[in-house]
Each structure stands twice: as C-alpha cells, then as structure tokens.
C-alpha cells in the first residue's frame, strides 16, 4: 500500500555548546512519516528526543539537514502541526473556552461552536468557564488536546504527553486519544519513554540510540485496535524493543 509522505526528516544534525566543546545531540537522523501514520519514538532518557521534537515542530533549527512537511522545508512552527508536551501549555489565565478559542481566527464565524464542539469531544462540557487551576491533571490534558484539535491541525506532535499523569489517568488518556483519532485521522508523532504506551498507540515505533541520537531500530506494530498490550504478541514486541534499549527481559 502506497502512503503519501507527510513528514520527511532529512540528515538532521544538532549539537549544543558545552564545557567540552560541542555536544552532539542528534547525528544524521533520517526517516519518513506517512500521511495519517502514528509514529512513536522511544529512546533512553537524555538521548535528544525532545530536541528532535522541537526541530520537527519547527521550534528549533537544525545545524544541518532539515524537516520537510508535505514536501516543503519547514521554517518555523505553524498550526498545521501542534505540539503537546508533558508540562502542557494551557494558558492558566484563560478559561477553558478562551483557551479553545485562542488558536481560532477572530473572523471565523464558527469559532464559538467549534470551541463548544471540541470541549464536548474531550468531555469538558460544563467546564468551559473554569480556569485551568480549577481542573484536574487529566482534564487539563484534555483541554490541551482540544485546543490543539480545534484548529484542525494535520499533525500532532506529542512529547511525553501523558507522563506527568498517574498510571491510571495515563491509560485513560491513551484510550481517549485513540477514540479521538478514530474520529478524525491525524498524522501523529509521539515521543515517549514508555514502551507499552508506544505499543498501545503507534503504527510504527522507532528506537533511538543513546546520544548522539540516530535510528537504531524500527518496529511495525501490526495489531488492530483495540489492542491488548498484555497479549503474547504485544509482549514479545515489548521485549524486543526493550532489548534494543539495553534492557534484557525473559521472554514471556
């Protein structure tokens, strides 16, 4: 099956100045993400995952190489692709409704109804006029996802989106994300250190090497949704990925 390429990362390199000269964080990364594909990137902590996401999202320039989205070189962030991070960036001084309206053009005649619709999509109806500090961590994450989706982005960049939540809420949000993605297909790039999360969500998993980061291995996740991460096939995949990450587990 031929899939149109959505994102193409071409020979990206990035280093930062440090006390011992340049610190190479990303060395020659090269990969493609298909239109509508869900790609998860896992890697050891400190391997430059977040740096990579910032480069792909357009928030940081690569030293060399570049990121092409729909064939055009990316030069800065725009609302075609929205970034969702671990800390989140829901504006605490705006209500849920005002946050959802934030990314929408003032001239858009449907902005109010869109905001309402997406508040409902993520289950925040009744909380539109609440301020973020009045919400729980899970609701805050829903608000952030709704704020991203309401501008109709083509790509979601998710950098450890659920890591700050407790395990139960993280699982709930994963299911929630799958439910939403089944309704409106987006291309998704997820960065995570949680292999099970990656197996639960992604179509393909890229394993990054320790710094300087390069693609060490790539795994397809062929299981249909809804997935059972405890199934023997999924567990075998998990063991294989963890092995790439340097963690030996006895195969189930």
């Amino acid at each position, binding site marked *: 099956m031929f899939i149109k390429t959505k994102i193409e990362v071409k020979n990206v390199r990035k280093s930062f100045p440090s006390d011992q000269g340049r610190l190479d964080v990303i060395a020659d990364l090269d990969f493609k993400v298909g239109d509508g594909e869900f790609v998860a990137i896992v890697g050891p902590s400190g391997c430059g995952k977040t740096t990579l996401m910032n480069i792909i999202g357009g928030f940081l320039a690569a030293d060399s190489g570049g990121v092409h989205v729909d064939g055009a070189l990316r030069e800065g962030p725009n609302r075609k692709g929205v970034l969702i991070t671990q*800390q*989140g960036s829901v504006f605490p001084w705006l209500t849920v409704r005002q946050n959802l309206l934030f990314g929408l053009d003032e001239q858009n005649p449907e902005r109010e109804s869109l905001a309402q619709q997406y508040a409902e999509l993520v289950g925040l109806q009744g909380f539109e006029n609440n301020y973020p500090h009045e919400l729980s961590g899970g609701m805050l994450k829903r608000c952030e996802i709704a704020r991203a989706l309401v501008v109709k982005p083509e790509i979601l960049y998710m950098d450890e989106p659920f890591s700050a939540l407790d395990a139960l809420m993280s699982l709930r949000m994963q299911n929630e994300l799958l439910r939403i993605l089944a309704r409106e297909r987006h291309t998704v790039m997820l960065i995570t250190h949680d292999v099970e999360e990656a197996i639960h969500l992604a179509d393909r998993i890229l394993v990054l090497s320790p710094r300087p980061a390069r693609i060490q291995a790539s795994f397809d996740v062929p299981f249909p949704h809804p997935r059972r991460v405890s199934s023997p096939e999924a567990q075998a995949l998990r063991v294989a990925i963890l092995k790439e990450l340097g963690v030996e587990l006895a195969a189930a």
Partner: protein
Amino acid sequence: MKWVRQALPSLVVLAVVVTLWWAVVALTHSVIFPTPLQVVQGTLELARDGTLWEHIGASLFRVAAGFGLAVLFAIPLGLWMGWVHGAFVTLNPLFQILRPISPIAWIPIAILWFGVGNASPIYLIFIASVFPMIVQTTAGVHTIEKRYLRAAENFGVTRQKLFLQVVFPAALPQIITGMRIGLGVAWLVVVAAEMIALHSGLGYMIIDSRNAGNRYDLVVAGMIIIGLIGLALDGIMRLLENMKNVRWRYVH
C-alpha cells in the same frame, strides 16, 4: 467562626499593647504623652469639626493622583522593557540608579520645580511608586514561561493577540505585586511630604498638632489613622489578587 479564631491572637496582642501603653502613661504621670482614651477623644473632636476628613481626603487625593500617574507610566514602560531587550538594556541602568534614592531626598527639588502646592507631593509619590512597578512589570514579562510563548507561536497569532492574551495576562500577577508595593510606598511618602511644605493632609496634621500646643493626643491619633488607612489600601490591592485570571499565580 473560623475568622474569629484566626483573628483572636492578633486582637489579644493589640489589647496587650494598648494596656501596656495605658499603664506606662498612668504610672509615669506623663503630662504630655496621651493615654489611649485621650487619643480617642482627640480623634472624635477632629472628626466632629470635620478637619479629620479634610486631612484624610487631601492625603488620599495626592496618593491617588501620584500613584495613578505612576501606574499609567510604569506598566506600559515595564511591558516594553520586558519585551524588547534593547529597551531593557538601555533604560534599566538609569532606573537602577534612580531607584535607591529615597523619595525624601527629592523634596528640595520637588519644591524647587513644583512649589509648595499639590504638585510637589504628587511628584514625590510618583517618583516613589513608579520604580517598583517598572521593575515588577519588567520581571513579570521576563519570567513568562517559554512553553506559553511557544504555544502562542505554534498557533501563529497576531502580535496584538499575543500581547493581549499572553504577555499581559501572564505578567499581570507580578504587575499587581508591583502595584501593591508602589501604593504602600506612596502612602509612606505622602505623610513625609506633607510634613514639610503643605497645609493639609495627615502628615501636616501631625506636625501642626505638635507645633500648635503639643497636642500629642492628635499626633498619636494621626499616626494610628495613617496605619489603618494604609492597611485598608493594601487590602484593596489584595482584592486584585483574587481576580480569577490571576489566581493561578497564587494558588500553588
């Protein structure tokens, strides 16, 4: 009755202070230092003939004018200095030199420039309250978390929207802190200014009561009234901290 229990210890302390004061005056048979009762009687006398209200009104008017001008000047300037690095680098050294100069030191120059009318104390109050507000506003902009600016950049909003919906509200809690400091200083300074060159206001009332017949009951009454009004002014500023769109900064 939670507030009663909370206020009780401080009420006890106040009662102890007043009792000690009374006891010391009674035991030393002081003819010039007033008892609390004499202070209350003096206050009632001034309230009845109306001069108390005139003095309070005069002082409040000067503070409102000087502080109001300082707010109008400091907030736009502080926002500009916070946002534009060049403006900060250029102007900050000047303000850092002017800031430690006590407003009292400005009194001769204020009289030289503005004479002995209302303009002098208004100028002094302006000078006293403008610097803390500039500093706090600038710091408020400087400490905006990058994730919020990134989110705004991601949604590609106009400069106007960026300023009105991100930069200003993000800095607002610190601006309010600056206003609290500024108003507190303004109230300190108005009394000092009125002691020197004016014929109305609470500061004048204190000096005049001493000069015109050693009315120390009115001196102490003036001091207590200054304290109570200062407390009330701070209470009003603290109401600003309860606004819903700034609560996020204070709730953690």
